[in-house]
């Protein structure tokens, strides 16, 4: 640890921390463009210049030149000023340099509202231009650099964050800088396109409007968007994300930092998972089969009828997709226990045609397999035996294999489908309940690394759909089980029952999630100390 004083505030930070990070820890911001904690240090933007008043306890002398905070690591006894007149003058100078050849087209720029040039200009700008407009350097605009990304070379401040990401994270080297001086341009390498599974991360890390997402651009002004913390349900990795939305519509997903899971990144496939949420296959009403026709009914009515139907059968199996949340899975398990102790099975395939890579992508395209297994679900892709009724939880087994499942479901006396999309399995259903997607409910998933992660309701379920936990809690009560009024009650009961400790709430799940093993050990430790107390 090193004691460092920044703007008269002394804090202790780990050795090797740079001054930009150390300032953050002290609650101060040292403005920067090229520095990104997930990338190597380039030191080219010169925005983070600071005044080192004392290098260390051993060398208490000030440095003659301003130093860049990103490439200066803390030393014990270091004294730094990041806001004195000398630093502010240098910073104003750098900002002015950055802007002289910038098109300043904020009114039509998608980055407006989340642009570091705008933000720092408001904080440190000179506010009047000394540069003749006609002398600006012209560069390329509206250049598609890949299927998902558009480049504006005039907006680019050449910080090379994107270049470094493509060199260091994906190692695909699609972008580089060509030409020199103020004619330097961000450009595609010969014959390449930025077309890799993680490409859109460069849009996120671009501090200005040079790289924009072709999917998101011109769709919404970012200051109208609200962000809800969530978890990507695209695969078993469970990347932490923010869901950006407005008026019950999702506009984009962005990675949210979690050092234990996805660092700063997410894959492009995951980024696109919101599109299905607003797709035309969403199930928006609940149905009861009347002869060969489905009749839409009030969801509570359908729950009531389905409960009666299950009661009249001997043994119900739960066939769940690993898209089901922990809370849904646990309620379904309780339901099965009341319906002849039927088997609870995860029917989703554990692998796909997409291979697991060494970064974030898992071949398991489902977010909660580990969680359902922790709840006691078994993994099977074959139909269960010795059952006469089915609770189908978010799984469309018929779409996966009609030959195998069609015959099986025809033999069932009762098939209750809980789903968020219209699927082929519904053709075999007796009752259908419309549930919200994972963007439309509070819940938890356990990822492939055994980490329990929380997601919040971003948008309301469409039409007359309800959150999955609401439907299942009501069904459980109708079947004679306890009545749970909130998702927190369900979560607490679940944690108690599967050995994760009592009194747990969604709020007690850290924003970075929690390793199931840690919660289990925590409970064990608490029990041991109670035991020790009893002996004493």
């Amino acid at each position, binding site marked *: 640890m090193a004691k460092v004083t920044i703007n008269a505030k002394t804090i202790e930070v780990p050795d090797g921390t740079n001054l930009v990070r150390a300032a953050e820890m002290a609650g101060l911001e040292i403005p920067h463009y090229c520095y990104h904690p997930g990338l190597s240090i380039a030191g080219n933007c*010169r925005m983070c210049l600071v005044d080192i008043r004392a290098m260390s306890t051993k060398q208490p002398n000030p440095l003659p030149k*301003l130093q860049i905070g990103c490439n200066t690591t803390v030393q014990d006894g270091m004294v730094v000023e990041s806001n004195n007149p000398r630093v502010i003058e240098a910073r104003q100078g750098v900002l002015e340099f950055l802007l002289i050849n910038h098109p300043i087209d904020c009114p039509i720029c998608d980055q407006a509202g989340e642009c570091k040039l705008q933000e720092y200009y408001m904080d440190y700008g000179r506010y009047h231009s000394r540069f003749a407009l006609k002398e600006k350097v012209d560069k390329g605009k509206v250049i598609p650099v890949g299927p998902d990304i558009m480049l504006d070379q005039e907006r680019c401040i050449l910080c090379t964050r994107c270049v470094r990401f493509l060199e260091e994270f994906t190692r695909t080297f699609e972008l580089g800088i060509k030409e020199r001086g103020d004619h330097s341009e961000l450009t595609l390498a010969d014959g390449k396109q930025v077309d890799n599974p993680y490409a859109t991360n460069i849009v996120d890390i671009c501090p200005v409007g040079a790289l924009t997402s072709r999917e998101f651009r011109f769709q919404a002004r970012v200051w109208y968007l609200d962000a809800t913390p969530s978890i990507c349900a695209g695969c078993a990795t469970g990347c932490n994300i923010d869901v950006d939305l407005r008026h019950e519509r999702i506009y984009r997903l962005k990675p949210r930092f979690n050092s234990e899971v996805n660092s700063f990144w997410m894959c492009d496939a995951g980024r696109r998972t919101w599109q299905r949420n607003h797709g035309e296959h969403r199930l928006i009403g609940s149905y009861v089969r009347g002869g060969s026709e489905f009749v839409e009914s009030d969801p509570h009515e359908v729950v009531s009828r389905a409960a009666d139907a299950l009661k009249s059968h001997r043994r119900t199996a739960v066939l769940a997709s690993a898209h089901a949340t922990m809370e849904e899975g646990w309620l379904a398990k309780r339901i099965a226990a009341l319906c002849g102790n039927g088997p609870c099975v995860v029917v989703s395939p554990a692998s796909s045609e997409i291979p697991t890579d060494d970064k974030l992508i898992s071949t398991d395209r489902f977010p909660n397999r580990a969680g359902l297994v922790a709840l006691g679900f078994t993994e099977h892709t074959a139909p269960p035996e010795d059952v006469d009724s089915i609770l189908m939880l978010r799984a469309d087994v018929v779409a996966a294999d009609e030959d195998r499942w069609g015959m099986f479901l025809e033999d069932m006396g009762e098939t209750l489908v809980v789903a968020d999309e219209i699927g082929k399995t519904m053709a075999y259903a007796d009752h259908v309940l419309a549930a919200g997607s994972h963007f439309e409910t509070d819940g938890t998933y356990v990822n492939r690394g055994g980490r329990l992660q929380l997601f919040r309701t971003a948008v309301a379920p469409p039409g007359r759909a309800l959150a999955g936990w609401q439907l299942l809690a009501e069904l459980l009560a109708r079947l004679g089980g306890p009545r749970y009024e909130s998702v927190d009650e369900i979560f607490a009961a679940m944690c108690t029952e599967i050995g994760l400790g009592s009194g747990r709430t969604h709020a007690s799940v850290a924003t970075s999630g929690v390793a199931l093993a840690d919660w289990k050990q925590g409970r064990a430790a608490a029990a041991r100390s109670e035991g020790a107390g009893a002996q004493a």
Partner: protein
Amino acid sequence: MSQHVLLRYRDVRADLRSLDNYVADGGYRTARRAVHEMKPEEVLQTVKDSNLRGRGGAGFPTGLKWSFLAKGTGKPTYLLCNADESEPGTFKDRDLMDHDPHQLLEGMIISAFAIGCHTAYIYIRGEFAFGADVLNKAIADCYAKGYLGQSVFGSAYSLDIHVHRGAGAYICGEETGLIESLEGKRANPRIKPPFPAVYGVFGCPTIVNNVETLACVRHIVERGAAWFKGIGPESGPGPKLYCVSGHVKRPGTYELPMGTPLMDLIFEHCGGMLPGRKLKAVIPGGSSVPILKADECDIAMDFDSVVKAGSMLGSAGIIVMDDSTDMVAALRRIAHFYHHESCGQCTPCREGTGWLEKLLIRLDEGLASEGDIATLDSVAKGMLGTTICVLSDAAAMPVRSFLQKFPEEFLAAATGRSRVVAADATAAA
């Protein structure tokens, strides 16, 4: 007997590019003695004792630089000869390589031996095709004789030297830009620390020395540190190559003791100003250093004296200007160079060099206002000390010094009055 040490080729009749002639003139005796009879530490100590300061521009003590080499890293150590010689006004290294390649190679063998290096590179400016050919021939001759290779002069010491031709950019002369370029990348200077002595070529400890510096090493080890220290001021002694260009009668490269008076250089060695012209100003160390007015030129040309006079010895590229020189046009030309050569990595330099040139074009073409002069100075100020390498400073320093020393000419250009140019010179033109 002549004064020449480094430019010995000028005194001997034989062509020193021939290995036989070089050896006949006493060449390679010192390198042979060093690898057989001296310990690397002894060589290093001799160079330290000599107070040799780097001839590339910064004047950093060579022995001290060598002693910063990271030790015990398990990685090879590289010696990198900076033969990029790209500072405008400088042409001494080319002279050394074109006419006396073995002197450089001998200096490199001794230096490489001192720092425990077994692979050395000469990064030569791309335009120096002739020099590259000369060096390659000289290196081939050395291998044939066993002066380079597995067993240097029959000793247990091995050394390979490679010539690498640059692809043409001023920034390749900056030592870390040079390293990046040698590695096959864009010559973007690296952020320091780490310095090359710790993390240089291919991430290994590296010493980068200028051609003239390495040539000096041969003579220091041959004649001793005391001899070297006896030439010129003790804090930065030795024979020195001065490159004089501009409005003098006999421009050229001159070898004289460090600390030779600038006025002697101009008026004795170079034969004085062109007929009928008066000295107006001198850029004493290559185009990037502050300019001196005629009345500031009564100085000794050594590192410390030129700094005291408010400029720098730099690469000793002395650009002499007479009273026909239009300072606005001259500065515009200098600014054009730095605009063209900025690597574009750091914001202040990338954007500032272009802005400086645009302001100077406006001034030179009579389109500027008085306010532009203040802007010019302020832009240059913002470029000083704010970037990874000193190209930004190199572009800004001439601007600030020209404005400070010749304000009336810039004011005239901004207000549309006729520029201050000597009447007779205008007539002559």
